[in-house]
């Protein structure tokens, strides 16, 4: 309502400017959180390094993944969260958001890896996607792919099926195992700079909540 008058719709007197500002900020917070279906603002315990984030966004742009052009579509980035390795194999763990599992359908998911090669020529690598067995005690192989790495650089692998099966089983963690034929150390450059960290980019469509029409 203009200054000094009352609102013709609700009958309340106009608010003092500072009160009005507080009300508007509270409304802005509530509006964003409700549209993102978040009960509260997330507390970030493991922020991704800016280098890894910028690289991931740049790679996605290069792949023309401008998914956020129509309502309900979103892109999710899960950057490598932990990993372990032996002389001939590396295990990468990616964690996915819990809310997404129940409220969105995964349209596609791509694993991005930055290969490094010890010498010119082809280097066979076996990529296994692992998932916990029903008891959650052991890992079983969900899929296995044989690759021939010819040169250093970014490579992509379709992991859409594995991520969909992960969500359908209510799990949050995707484990990728890379096994190399000869003893060339880690096939990834990740350890040397966070700009080369592996990440998974998934496109998902938020499920619209079931609407009941009152007649």
């Amino acid at each position, binding site marked *: 309502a203009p200054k000094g008058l009352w609102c013709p719709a609700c009958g309340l007197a106009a608010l003092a400017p500072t009160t009005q500002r507080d009300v508007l900020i509270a409304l802005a*917070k509530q509006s964003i959180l409700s549209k993102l279906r978040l009960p509260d603002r*997330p507390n970030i315990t*493991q922020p991704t390094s800016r280098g890894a984030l910028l690289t991931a966004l740049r790679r996605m742009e290069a792949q023309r993944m401008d998914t*956020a052009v129509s309502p309900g579509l979103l892109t999710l*980035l899960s950057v490598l969260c932990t990993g372990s390795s032996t002389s001939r194999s590396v295990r990468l763990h990616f964690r996915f958001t819990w809310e997404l599992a129940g409220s969105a359908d995964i349209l596609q998911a791509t694993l991005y890896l930055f290969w490094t090669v010890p010498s010119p020529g082809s280097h066979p690598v076996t990529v296994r996607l692992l998932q916990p067995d029903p008891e959650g005690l052991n890992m079983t192989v969900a899929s296995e792919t044989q690759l021939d790495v010819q040169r250093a650089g970014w490579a992509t692998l379709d992991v859409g099926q594995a991520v969909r099966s992960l969500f359908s089983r209510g799990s949050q963690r995707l484990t990728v195992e890379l096994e190399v034929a000869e003893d060339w150390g880690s096939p990834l450059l990740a350890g040397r700079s966070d700009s080369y960290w592996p990440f998974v980019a998934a496109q998902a469509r938020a499920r619209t909540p079931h609407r009941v029409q009152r007649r």
Partner: protein
Amino acid sequence: GIDCSGDSRMCCRKEFFVDFKEIGWEDWIIQPEGYHMNYCTGLCPLHMAGIPGLAASFHTAVLSLIKANNADAAVDSCCVPTQRRPLSLLYYDRDSNIIKTDIPDMIVDACGCT
């Protein structure tokens, strides 16, 4: 649409920017730096009525409120958004995943009288 300026009491778009850093949200919202939560305010006298608006049903609801509160109010049109656009967000969720999405109709670009 008209942007509010000076003491005009006519229907206009009021700019309002929420700076995420000011409200302590800059750690989980990566981009953008804030939210333009513009809103529509001001009166719609008869000669301005009829400019197409977005929420006719909203208009009906508000009108019935006005009549309930003040039967002799000479208002029969409301100042509502006529153009809106999405808010594009890049943010962390609770599991430190990074999500990029567009929330439709979050930013008011123009206002008009229904």
